[in-house]
Every structure is written in C-alpha cells, then in structure tokens.
C-alpha cells in the first residue's frame, strides 16, 4: 500500500583524444551497470514473504519462481536490463558492453555512416570504454582530400548528457566540405567532464508503436505536443514510446534519444525525441510519453517498411533515457 501512496498525482575518465585504433588495456575493466529493479520491488503488494505471487482472489494458484533452467545460462557479457537504455548489447553489435576493452571512449567505426555527396555529414556511435561516467563527449573528424591534404576538422558533441561505463552514445557531425572530395577521415573522441553532474538513469524505456514513412493512414492523437501529420502523403515516420521511472525521488526534464541502425550496424539516424508534456515531476513508476518524427525522405523509408513487419521499426533501434532529480 505504501507503493500506491508513493506514486502519481498526489506525489509526490578519460585522458584526451583517442586515435581510431583503440588502445587495449592489459586487464580489461568490467563496467558497473545499473539495472532495472525486479518485479518484487516494483509490485511488492503482489508477493508473499516467500517471494511467491499471492493468488488472486477466488484463485488458489500461488506461483513461485521456477528454478534456474539447468541447460542454459546467460551470456556473462550480457549486462541485463540496463536502466535508461534499450538496444543492442555486446561489442560486435555496437551495443552496451560489460567488458571495457579499450580503457577509454572510442569511436565505433563500424557504426559510421557518412554522406557521399553534398555537404559532408556523419552519424555514428562512440562507446565509453573507460572507467566511470563521463560528460557529453566531443567527436572530432579530420577530413582529408585525395592527396592527403586536410580539408576540414569537424567536431560535435554526443547526444547524451553523460555516458556511463560501457554505454554507446550517438552523434551527428555536419561539415562544410563537399563530401565527394573527402578521401579519408581520422576519427577521435574526447571525453567530456570526468565528474559530470549526476543524472537519473533509472528509467525503463520502450517503444509502444510506430508507423512508416510514406503513404499510410493519417495518425491523429488529440494530445498537447503531438505532431500533426501533414494534410497529404508522404507522411513522416512516427514512433512513440514511454519512459517509466524507477527512481526513488521524483524526476524532472526527462529526455529520450533514439538511433536506428541498418542490419550491418551502421547508424541511419540519431536524434532527440520530443517529450510529451507533463504537469509534474515523474514519481516512482510514473511515466512520460515521447514521440519521434522523421521527415527526411532519404532516411524515413529505411526505418520501417510499410509492407513488412507490423507496427514497429524494422531498423535496429537504440533508446536512451535520462532525467534530473527534482
């Protein structure tokens, strides 16, 4: 019953730039990863003192947890349900990792997508493989022309305010050089503040549904902050989801950042979602919606095929969520 009162309406290191080749630390560190609380913490009213689910009224079925399956075990590198993140895990997948091989933040070169024509543009991921949370990192790309002459140095921040140990973080860089003249790029990343202001990451973040770019039915939700579809197609790709707080103190200014990758792991899009307005800080198990709209006719159709896959993106999806203590 305490739970009910607590919720709702009345509530209530890194050392500088890193070259493209990661430096492999001799004894890899293991990331400390914040995971989401188990159900008996979230719903204590459902459980008895033995950790079993109490039967519903008019039922006699008391359900205790089944034993550990004897024939399998989780990948020891799987970080589990990471708070404030949903997406790929593991080194090969360009995801969250438990083992910090490089000892520093690195650019994940396999995640990079660069423009081939027009102004040079890149989108991709860095990953903090150093010990400790860092502030917003700065990604640096030095562009070279055909004969090795430097064309431009482009820098830009990651889209996360802070990056935890093992966590990937997206970035978008936009330069002035003609992309067709760029022969190669040297990448590096500088960690941000080594002692960043603490952020609340105790969020479950998920996708509720999405609709594809192009010629689809119009979607109209009579909600403050909800983007209105244009009067005629092509309609944008739309995705909406929910963040749910498991922080013990109310949280304000929740943020969600989204990235999509193609089947090879190259990032197609990265950007901040629009948070739907709330009238009060989010308490324990309180939630806030978000919506992402992608109008780019080159990217939108890549995120969800209109003829395949149902109601969710077909591209691999990364979600990050954070907020600040009230």
């Amino acid at each position, binding site marked *: 019953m305490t739970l*009910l*009162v607590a*919720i*709702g*309406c*009345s509530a209530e290191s890194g050392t500088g730039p890193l070259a493209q080749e990661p430096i492999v630390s001799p004894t890899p560190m293991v990331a400390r990863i914040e*995971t*989401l609380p188990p*159900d008996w913490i979230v*719903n204590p009213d*459902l459980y008895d003192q033995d950790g079993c689910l109490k039967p*519903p*009224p008019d*039922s006699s*079925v*008391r*359900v*205790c*947890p*089944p*034993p*550990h*399956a*004897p*024939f*399998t075990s*989780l990948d020891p590198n799987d970080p*589990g*349900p990471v708070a404030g993140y*949903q997406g*790929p895990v593991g080194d090969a997948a360009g995801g969250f990792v438990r083992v910090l091989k490089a000892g520093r933040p690195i650019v994940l070169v396999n995640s990079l997508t660069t423009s081939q024509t027009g102004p040079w543009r890149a989108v991709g991921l860095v990953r903090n493989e150093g010990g400790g949370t860092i502030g917003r990192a700065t990604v640096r790309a030095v562009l070279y022309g055909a004969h090795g002459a430097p064309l431009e140095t482009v820098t830009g921040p990651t889209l996360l305010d802070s990056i935890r140990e093992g966590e990937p973080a997206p970035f978008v860089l936009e330069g002035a050089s003609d992309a067709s003249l760029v022969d190669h790029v040297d990448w590096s990343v500088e960690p941000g503040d080594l002692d960043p202001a603490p952020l609340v990451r105790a969020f*479950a973040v*998920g996708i*509720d*549904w999405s*609709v594809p770019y192009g010629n689809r039915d119009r*979607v*109209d*939700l*009579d*909600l*403050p902050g909800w983007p209105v579809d244009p009067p005629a197609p092509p309609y944008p790709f739309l995705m*909406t*989801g*929910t963040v*749910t707080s498991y922080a013990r103190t109310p949280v304000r200014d929740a943020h969600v950042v989204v990235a999509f990758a193609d089947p090879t792991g190259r990032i197609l899009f990265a950007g901040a979602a629009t948070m*739907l*307005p*709330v*009238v009060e800080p989010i308490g324990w*198990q*309180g*939630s*806030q*919606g978000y919506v992402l709209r992608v109008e780019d006719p080159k990217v939108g159709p890549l995120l969800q095929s209109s003829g*395949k*896959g*149902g*109601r969710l993106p*077909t591209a691999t999806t990364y979600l990050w969520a954070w907020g600040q203590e009230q």
Partner: protein
Amino acid sequence: MTRLLTALAAASLLVALQPADARAYRFGTTPLNDVLYWSGQTTKRSGRTTNELAAMVLAPTWPKTGAGSSYTPSPMTLSRWDYASDRLWEGGDHRTAYPRSFFHPGVGMWQLDSTGLGSALPTWRAISSYYAAKLVAQRMASAYCSSSGSESQRRAAAWRPWRACANGACESIYQAIYEPDRVVVTADGSVGREGGMVARTCRYSGDLTTFTCWFVDPAVAQGHKSSWQQAPLNGNYTAGPSPLSYGFYTFGFDPQGLEWRHWFQQDTGYAVTSYASRPSGKDVRSYSLWYQGRVLCDESTGRGYCPPGG
C-alpha cells in the same frame, strides 16, 4: 483481503445491476471484476472514480483484440501482425520447418508487448486479466494524472501507447461505456480470467523440483478468436500475418530473469520439441534464444519428457 473481497463484491454488483443491452460492449465477468478492482485501487493516482478509470482501462481491449463492439475480448489473444523479426520464429529463422512454434510478442487483451508496456511481464501474467489489469490501470492512471489539457486529451494521453486508440477510437468507446454510476458492459461468464490458459505443475526432466507452469492453447481460447486466429496459420513472413502458435507451455521469470515458452512434439506434431527464452525487460525480437530438445515435464498430465525418478 477483506478490503479486496469487498471491492470485488461491489464490482460484481455493478456488473449484475446492468440491464441486458444488445448494444453494450461485452467483457468477461471475472476480467471485468479485475479491471474494476484495480481501477478502484488506483483512483488515488488518477483522481478519477473507479468507473471512469475502469472505462478507460477497458476501452483499448476491443480494438486491440479485434473483438469490436459485438464480441468479448479474449485474454489469450496473441499478436499476428509482428512477423518480420526472425527471432520470433522457431530457431530464430523464418524459414523454419516448424512455423507454428512461434513466439508471439504481443499478448492478452491489451496486447502487452515485450518492447513496450509488457517488457517486464511474463506471458502468463500478460494473459491473466488480474495481473494485466493492474499494470494497465496503474499506467493509465499515471499518464492521465501527469498530462495536461482537456479531460479527453488527458484520456488520449493515457491511451497513447495503444495505436488502435488513435483517431478517437477509444474516446468513442469510452463515451459508449462510461456512466457515472456504472460501466455499461455486458458481463460474459464464458470468458474467464485466463481465457482458457490453464495452470499445470511442471518440472525439468532430471530434476524433482516442481513449479507452476501455464499451458496456452489457442485452440481452446475463450472469447473472440476469429480476428487473431485467421489463416494462413503457418504465417507469411513477407506480407503477414505471423503464424498462429500451437499450444505451448510458459513460465517465468526464473532466477536468471528469463521467461520460457516450450512447444511439445505432442502438441505441434512436429519432429522436434522446441523452446525459447526472453529476458525480463528486453524485447523478444532482439533477445530470444531458441533451443531444441525435450527438457520439460508436465507432471500434471505426464506429458513432455518425464523420465521416472526425476
């Protein structure tokens, strides 16, 4: 418990007092009591009355299950329109020879999905109206409470996670079923809390420790079935729908945080017994792991692999 039973008795009374109304939406009797009970428990959060919140909680179930206004939503409803992720298919490959060993990601009357609201709910709890209604009532109350705008906009905020509620669909249902002193719903005694899912006693083969497992057989689902049991039952990876699963056993989460579904040869008629896991908090489309082999015994019926002596 006394308070609980009192609330349930009141809820039952609300249902019983409703006159027969051919226009009324239909809902299982015990599931309706569950919705009313949890709505009553959650009113502090939303500032809504029990009936207001219950009508909100009920509204998405008819469009989400395809039951429309004429039929009773089935608690066992399994999603058919998520089919393009190989990890949902047996062995993690849509070219499998065993298509109806299929891991439906959306489950139950609210189609709680492992990528969204159902992420931390095992299959059997997403089917049970008792557990599913608790989650939905809490989430809707929270969303309503924290949103701004008119009352209808705040309801729209509570329904936002259900795509089927867009374009005013759930507001129309809400207006049809809500009255201040009751929820205008015809109670259907033929649809129970688990919608035909049954509790069994299972053990791993070679282990004497027994535990509760649940047998989910779409063939005996209660309530509306035709819109989620339509052909082709083997599915179509290119254009949908997904396969419709044969009966399967499910349980979890276990101490590793895994939920399991097992498809016995005896139920599928296939050459193999398959099983798959999903970690709590993670989307089955990305995190299912598939296995083949006989490792589970339904102790209640002697089905599965039940070697003597454990």
